[in-house]
């Protein structure tokens, strides 16, 4: 059996004197969707930003397919698609211009055609030429989703991707995560919605005070029992 796709060992990160991550160990296999849960300030976003290469760890290692990402930062960036809880798009540009711009940065061939195809899938094909500034919060989040998928990444990192999404948007998100896993990709996402975590993930991981304190297959858990135990932990 081959090793894990993503392998974290003793990952540590502090901001100033405040330790955020105190030694995180985590393995994720290809085709797996992992929900990362925890109270505010427990290090979920920091962990995702470390995995995306936006932060450098103070200690520990991140290996992608057995390769330490410190040696291959660009390799990591090509494989990651990131959606944050804020879409962060260029408001002066149109939806399509934003996507084509990022397509060029990732070296995507025929980025305009690819962007249009994905925009159609998320129901924004008609709004491709409109400026990003006129879109609603949920629509912006869909555009951010398209941007993350544009270069067909193996690893999707979603930081509270359900923020601002309506029911149709949430269904779209679920479908995206399923497709990613079905295509042997990997998804690691954070959420505060336990229902979403249960519905969208294969495994639940709980982060508390900078450490993983619990992880288990979602299908084997009872949501109400888990909710009670989880609320005790985060409180």
């Amino acid at each position, binding site marked *: 059996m081959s090793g894990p796709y993503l392998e974290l060992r003793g990952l540590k990160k502090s901001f100033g004197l405040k330790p955020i991550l105190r030694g995180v160990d985590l393995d994720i296999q290809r085709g797996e969707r992992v929900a990362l849960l925890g109270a505010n300030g427990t290090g979920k976003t920091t962990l995702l930003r470390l995995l*995306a*290469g*936006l*932060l*450098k760890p103070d200690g520990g290692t991140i290996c992608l397919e057995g390769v330490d990402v410190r040696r291959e930062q*660009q390799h990591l*960036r*090509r494989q*990651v698609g*990131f959606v*944050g809880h*804020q879409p*962060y*798009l*260029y*408001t*002066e*540009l149109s939806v399509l*211009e934003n996507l084509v*711009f*990022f397509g*060029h*940065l*990732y*070296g995507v061939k025929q980025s305009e055609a690819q962007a249009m195809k994905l925009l159609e899938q998320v129901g924004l094909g008609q709004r491709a030429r409109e400026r990003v500034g006129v879109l609603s919060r949920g629509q912006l989040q869909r555009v951010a989703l398209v*941007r993350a998928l544009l270069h067909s990444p193996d690893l999707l990192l979603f930081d509270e991707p359900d923020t601002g999404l309506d029911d149709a948007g949430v269904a779209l998100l679920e479908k995206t995560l399923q497709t990613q896993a079905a295509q042997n990709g990997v998804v690691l996402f954070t959420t505060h919605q336990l229902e979403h975590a249960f519905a969208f993930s294969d495994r639940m991981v709980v982060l508390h005070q900078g450490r993983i304190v619990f992880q288990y297959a979602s299908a084997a858990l009872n949501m109400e029992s888990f909710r009670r135990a989880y609320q005790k932990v985060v409180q």
Partner: protein
Amino acid sequence: MSELALFFEQVWAILWKDLRSEFRNRQMLIGMGMFALLVLIIFNFAFDLRVDNKAAVAPGALWVAFVFASLLGLGRTIAAEREQGSLDRLLLSPVSRKAIYLAKLLGNVLFIGIVELVAVPVFAILFDVPLATGLLIPIVLLGTLGIAAVGTLFSALTASSQTREMLLPILIFPLIVPIVIGAVRATGSLMIAVSNEPPWLGLIAAFDVIFLSISLLTFEYIVDE
């Protein structure tokens, strides 16, 4: 696609994005242009310009206008990306940090150049000085390149600071002194021929090369965490 072709595609993409964004709202360009013109007008009224002291005062006024106007634009180079949160998305992509620097630098040179294109004719009229435009172009181009090279680097350094408007000039001014001196003296020599002048253009070009090299090498350590 070869690495080099991808590099230049990324430079072009970032430059195109910045130009497109700026030409759609024009806030920065209008601000810089107005500022340069106001400085020239104020200097014109503040100094008693006679024929014998024009060559000593006018080039200084021109370059003060250029430098101050440049600072307005340079301060926004990376700060605007950081405020929008889009800097993270830029840094997430597999784009060379050198490509980001080069694109931002070219954008700055272009924006400052547009302001200079407007300011130079106004300067010539207000100060009533003969300017050999053909000879002024390399001076302005090299001077602008040096100012933008330093400014682009330090705009990244100060982008996350709340006091960047104050910090940026304090950091940039001491470094660009040689370039400004060279540019002022070279511009002055276009008005009154002076014998045995040092090769000011060569001096500016040398500083440009030094600043560009250092900036290209250090930019990634500044923008990455």
